[in-house]
């Protein structure tokens, strides 16, 4: 079925078909429940509950369906997790569809890291739709890594919605490595003084994959800060739309916003589109956006190959030279190494 998804906050000319994306999604009818594993050494610092809800859920992606589960996690006041809490979903031939919602509330002055992963025991087409909502209360810190690498045939939708209160900070590391149709929507409301968010995003697009990213941060109060950084590579017939918006609302004096995308194009069969918007109704702010792209620098390649590296190895190194600035932001070393392995396999 055809769906029109991921509408941008402000419309522009229709010629480039970037205001939204029209995709064919084959959503399996529900068959079997997926297994969830939650690994955490400090369960006493969290309140966890699972709802089974049947009501229609919407997100800014614009797709409506019934949820399977809603996972509610509360990080208790003043508690700090020493190790990350890992949430893992399993797909099998029968459990091939997942509509899940992970809802995290960080209470005042808490500190926690979550890792959301998927394990697939099947090469069949899988449909996954993650809705990830977070509320970060005063002085709290919430760090979430999402690894999306189910399989080449899967359709993967991720909708993230954040509300960030006074002096609170939320970070997402989003590794978008595999899948056919990949639609991600990221939306953050910086609600109070000194609220801050950051998004570190790596994508790899190959074969016939379609990647549509639609990111938005609203800055509402003084001294808000946002950083949305994306690095990606595209090869084969991959199509990518990068849409990112920083909206400086009136009243967000002394705020800072930065959005950035750099994409490395490895074939001349790819299509790379970008729409980095800056909207501003406040005088005393500083905002910047920058999108750049190009192919692998031949001089760099030559230099590396003159030191004995194969073209493949050299290219790999150049790709990592781009990704490293983001990979270094992954605080969990184990996960970082895992991601590096996954990326190496992909390229």
């Amino acid at each position: 079925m055809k769906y029109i998804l991921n509408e941008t906050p402000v419309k522009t000319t229709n010629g480039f078909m970037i205001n939204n994306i029209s995709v064919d999604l084959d959503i399996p009818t529900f068959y079997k429940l997926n297994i969830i594993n939650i690994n955490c050494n400090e369960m006493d610092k969290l309140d966890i509950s699972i709802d089974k809800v049947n009501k229609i859920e919407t997100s800014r992606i614009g797709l409506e369906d019934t949820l399977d589960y809603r996972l509610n996690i509360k990080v208790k006041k003043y508690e700090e997790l020493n190790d990350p809490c890992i949430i893992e979903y399993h797909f099998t031939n029968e459990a091939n569809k997942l509509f899940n919602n992970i809802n995290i509330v960080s209470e005042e002055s808490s500190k926690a890291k979550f890792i959301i992963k998927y394990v697939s025991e099947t090469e069949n087409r899988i449909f996954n739709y993650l809705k990830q909502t977070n509320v970060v209360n005063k002085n709290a810190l919430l760090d979430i890594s999402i690894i999306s690498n189910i399989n080449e045939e899967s359709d993967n939708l991720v909708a993230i919605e954040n509300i960030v209160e006074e002096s609170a900070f939320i970070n997402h590391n989003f590794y978008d490595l595999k899948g056919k149709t990949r639609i991600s929507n990221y939306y953050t409301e910086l609600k109070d003084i000194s609220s801050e968010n950051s998004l570190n995003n790596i994508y790899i697009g190959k074969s016939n994959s379609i990647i549509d990213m639609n990111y938005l941060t609203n800055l509402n109060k003084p001294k808000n800060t946002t950083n949305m950084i994306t690095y990606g590579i595209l090869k084969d017939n991959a199509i990518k739309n990068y849409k990112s918006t920083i909206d400086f609302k009136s009243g967000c004096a002394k705020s800072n916003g930065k959005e950035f995308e750099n994409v490395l194009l490895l074939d001349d069969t790819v299509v790379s589109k970008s729409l980095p918007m800056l909207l501003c109704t406040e005088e005393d702010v500083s905002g910047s956006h920058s999108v750049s792209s190009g192919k692998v620098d031949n001089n760099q390649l030559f230099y590396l190959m003159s030191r004995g590296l194969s073209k493949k190895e050299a290219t790999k190194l150049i790709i990592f030279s781009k990704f490293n600035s983001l990979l270094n932001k992954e605080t969990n070393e184990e996960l970082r190494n895992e991601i590096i392995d996954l990326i190496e396999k992909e390229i």
Partner: protein
Amino acid sequence: MKTRIDNVNENIYNIKTETRYLKKGIGISEDVVKLISKEKEEPGWVLDIRLKALKLFNELNNPDWGPELTELDINKIATYIKPETKKQMSWDDVPEDIKNVFDKLGIPEAEKESLAGVGAQYDSEAVYHNLSEKVEKLGVIYTDFDTAIKEYPELVKKYFTKAVTLNDHKYIALHYALFSGGSFIYVPKNVKLDIPLQSYFRLNAPGAGQFEHTLIVVDEGAELQFIEGCSAPGYNELNIHAGCVELFVEENAYLRFSTIENWSKNMLNLNTKKCFVKKNGKIEWIMGSFGSKVSMLYPLSVLNGENAKCEFTAISFAGKGQNLDTGLKVIHNAKNTSTVVNSKSISKDGGICTFRSNAWVKKNAKNSKLVLNCESLMLDSESRSDTIPVNRLETDEVTFSHEATIGKISDKAIFYLMSRGLSEDEAKALIVRGFAEPISKSFPVEYAVEMNRLINLELEGTIG
């Protein structure tokens, strides 16, 4: 502000003149279209285009993005107004009241000092067109569009509607149905003009529309600088300007197209500009947008030949009640093509500036290069400044970067200037002028002065 900046008399743009009109057309209908065509004694093929466009106008919808246009009721607009004069070759023959207006705008004086030719349009018709003898001898054609249709039908047929087609959007259809006036320029092969030609468009009547068509062909190896000026006195009624500019830069040719737009703040400026550039050709756009209530203007450059280049330099300044939605479009359609964009905007007193761009690098545009830069300055928090660029790359062999920044005047810079005795307002004005300077210096000297004058004029409301 009072001491530093020359006292500007805004009234030079605001002269209102009672002019007697021979003919008037109101709204848009087959009758109006036929009236225009008849008045101009046009050949049938031109009327056919008009009627086709009329049909399209009725079919097409307003764009579903950008500024609100529903305020416009085309049936209340005087769409064709013919002043009581013929086109003249000498300013002495132009009726006194009309000549007065252009005198005050400094057009005849500029013609004497620094221009190779001047065209002047008053409402719907050209009232003056003249080309220096020296340039005429080189085979350059510079005339009003009606004359061009009559005297150079083959040339006009070859290019007219070929860059901007009738169905591009609703308001270009409106343009083709009602077009009147404008300029036609042909620069023959290898003729290089080092002094510019200028057309000045003045919309004098209240509640009126101007739909001039400008067509420029710069043939192989030729060079031309063209300046377009526009202004209108302020009224309460809505005016509309739906002009069209078609440019053809042939192989190895060069065209610099400068616009200083100072429409009154009751103007809807829905202008369409397009340029085809062939091998080794270069188009330079220089745009200063100061006036109008709403502007939607995104000149398109199609780089169709190898090594074709586009340079786009623009500044817009939106004050109270203004919504200036401007930018550019570019299509890279051949090897080694390049685009350089420098755009600046200033918003104050609730004004809205939007930079909108479309950059499309097609698969065959190997080794092309695009560098786009936008800077926005906000002078207060009632105003708005948006940057909405769309980029589409279909080849890997492209060097592409787009950067934009948004911000206010630095407090530290203000303090530094004030510590040298400048008042806060003067310090701000100096910094704003410094911000605009890289753009204003792209204009020919006389126009840079005019632009600074406009910037000062715009600043006076808030600063000083």
